[in-house]
């Protein structure tokens, strides 16, 4: 990190600031492409964690969070801003990181910043006929400007792809058609039982072979990030649960950790242990549901019923302590909302051997099935370097051999006190992504087993002020949720409401990877690949 800091000092235009393992580099907008290229190609920042659009009031800006796969604990934060609010423009970084192409569309949708040389500058969540850019501070929320639409978006609006390119110093605006005139296009979703939510895929087919996939998002875009700006910090926690509702506890944990680090407090050890156990129980519940749904997509309803049966056991444990089944609402800033139930430890200890037994049954029931193996093996290959470039984190990235587990990279809560294995497979196929989830359940059980008897006595929450105000600054916190790295970015200006909140959704990049994995395969394989990536759509749309 020091060497990088000294190297950066040679760049005249860059302003560098270091805080622990995080290095913040602020550059003028005309130099951002050069700086990003240098960081990516020379300094090994090969993983684009997130792009955060910002409205500073007078300026519109972008924050890039970069990470290295070799030393993943180091984060480089590249900041830039442009004063032009009428026609804000930045150079696209999609040729450096594949993940940038989908993130930049999101920034364009919310802030209207056009990325030059980006091949696809359509809106990503909102419809093409939406008026205004909702996350700008001067956005007009008048509902008459954007009434509830009565008809679906026109196909031309979905297929006309505008882009701005820079050639010979001149900006050229152009529009091209996404599909050829005679292409055979099938709509998957938004209401489709195997889409795991309201995702809309437009798939161009050649017979049964997939030529192109165009994902359309936004059918459950609730504008959570904008709502957060008018909510207080404890209120935001409730919205974070409803992003990826299957890993609600982990998402809430991320927001709590982000606020706690900003406030300079730490949850008491008892809370940290219980949070870790809750996280792992949630992970088990999520993987069981993911497994069940994947098997159901292949036609095995029994597996779904088995998965849900075991998931109910986890939910019972949650319910007894926290009162909620799915939305546990147990983490608060500073610790936990309530102490654990007297039965908690006993019930968790009963659950561990039960789950181990059932895990064997699940393997017996489905993993060995020759039809299932035929549909999962040698299909849906994702290479490791592609996974990194696309930002495919979590079990799906680890199935391609990428070590990206935040619990190992930067242990939070009680993860540094336990011994567990980061499950890595190198196949990168649908089957690897399937089996890795079942293996992770076993590792989660191991973590819980080590913690459950050692929950320290003491307070379950640190005292916080009645009105929580975060000190001025930018804060970023990642946790490992059931689908990958879930990140929270909070910009505070010292008020009781945040100035900007951005959630890094692990599922967005998973869907972004779909077109790279599935192109050229059969349309039936697309269902299996989607199920093995296990995305949750409300997490993408926010």
């Amino acid at each position, binding site marked *: 990190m020091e060497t990088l800091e000294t190297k950066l000092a040679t760049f005249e235009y860059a302003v560098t600031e270091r805080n622990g393992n995080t290095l913040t580099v602020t550059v003028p907008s005309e130099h951002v492409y050069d700086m990003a290229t240098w960081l990516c190609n020379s300094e090994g920042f090969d993983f684009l964690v997130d792009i955060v659009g910002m409205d500073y009031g007078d300026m519109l800006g972008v924050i890039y969070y970069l990470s290295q796969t070799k030393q993943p604990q180091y984060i480089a934060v590249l900041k830039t801003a442009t004063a032009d609010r009428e026609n804000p423009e930045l150079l696209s970084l999609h040729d450096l990181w594949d993940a940038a192409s989908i993130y930049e569309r999101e920034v364009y949708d919310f802030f209207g910043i056009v990325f030059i040389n980006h091949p696809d500058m359509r809106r990503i969540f*909102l419809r093409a006929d939406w008026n205004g850019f909702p996350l700008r501070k001067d956005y007009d929320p008048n509902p008459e400007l954007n009434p509830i639409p009565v008809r679906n978006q026109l196909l031309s609006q979905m297929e006309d792809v505008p882009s701005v390119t820079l050639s010979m110093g001149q900006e050229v605006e152009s529009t091209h058609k996404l599909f050829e005139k005679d292409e055979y296009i099938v709509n998957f979703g*938004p209401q489709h039982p195997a889409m795991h*939510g309201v995702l809309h895929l437009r798939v161009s087919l050649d017979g049964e072979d997939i030529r192109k996939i165009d994902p359309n998002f936004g*059918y*459950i*875009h*609730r504008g959570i990030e904008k709502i957060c700006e008018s909510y207080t910090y404890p209120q935001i926690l409730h919205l974070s649960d409803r992003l990826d509702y299957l890993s609600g506890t982990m998402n809430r944990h991320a927001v709590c950790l982000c606020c706690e680090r900003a406030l300079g407090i730490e949850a008491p050890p008892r809370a940290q242990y219980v949070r870790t156990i809750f996280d792992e129980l949630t992970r088990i519940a999520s993987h069981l549901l993911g497994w069940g749904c994947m098997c159901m997509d292949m036609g095995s309803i029994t597996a779904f019923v088995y998965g849900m049966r075991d998931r109910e056991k986890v939910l019972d444990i949650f319910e007894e302590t926290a009162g909620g089944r*799915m939305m546990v609402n147990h983490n608060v800033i500073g610790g936990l909302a309530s102490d654990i139930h007297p039965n908690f430890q006993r019930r968790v200890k009963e659950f561990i051997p039960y789950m181990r037994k059932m895990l064997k049954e699940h393997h017996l029931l489905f993993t060995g099935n020759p039809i299932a193996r035929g549909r999962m093996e040698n299909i849906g290959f994702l290479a490791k370097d592609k996974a990194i470039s696309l930002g495919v984190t979590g079990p799906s990235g680890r199935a391609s051999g990428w070590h990206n587990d935040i619990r190992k990279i930067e242990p939070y809560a009680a993860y540094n006190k336990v011994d567990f294995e980061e499950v890595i497979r190198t196949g990168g196929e649908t089957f690897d992504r399937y089996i890795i989830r079942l293996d992770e359940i076993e590792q989660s059980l191991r973590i819980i087993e080590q913690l459950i008897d050692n929950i320290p006595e003491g307070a379950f929450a640190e005292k916080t002020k009645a009105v929580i105000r975060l000190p001025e600054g930018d804060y970023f916190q990642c946790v490992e949720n059931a689908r990958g790295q879930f990140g929270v970015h909070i910009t505070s200006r010292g008020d009781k409401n945040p100035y900007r909140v951005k959630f890094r959704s692990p599922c967005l990049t998973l869907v972004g990877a779909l077109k790279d994995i599935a192109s050229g395969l059969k349309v039936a394989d697309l269902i299996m690949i989607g199920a093995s990536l296990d995305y949750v759509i*409300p997490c993408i749309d926010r």
Partner: protein
Amino acid sequence: MEERSIDMEVKNIRIPNMKYEDFNDNEYLEQYVDELQRNGVNVVLGRLSDFINWGRSNSVWPLTFATSCCGIEFMCVAAARTDFARFGWEVTRNSPRQADVIFVCGTIVHKMAPVLTRLYEQMAEPKYVIAVGSCAIGGGPFKSSYHVLKGVNEIIPVDVYVPGCPPRPDAILYGMMQLARKIKVQNFFKLPDQPDITEHPKDDAPHKTK
């Protein structure tokens, strides 16, 4: 004996020895039945509508439709613990044309509104809507958003509201039973008029249900 009527619409039938009004006066039927039962014949007199509704209310096919969190609890209702097969509701249909009821599980946003309207339009009558969770009822925690409908009843009529965020599976079961009750008391031959929704109106006026 109080006057009862069979609810079939009978019009302009001419039988020489029977007055037209007698078709709606069933006293003689009751007397017949009494006489038959006295002589040991097993006869039951009931309304055809009740009989059909008994069948309908115990075989309601929901559409597999969910947008967010409530959908997971809906899946729990379908799974082993709560198991809505006990009520005859387990045949979840993937096509709206085969479904009787749509569970609106989750938030409905602007972009989804025309899709949901189309799904509702595609369902065959008689059709029912259950709004599951606070989002479908009134926008829920996202009420202040720029992109969220303040309740699904802005675009389609709702029969049963199930509160909760998300509702427990037991609550969804209770909502289902309420709908079953509603179906049972309906007159199958005089179903209330479904509101007229035009999917592609000429002008771009916002949705209005009549």
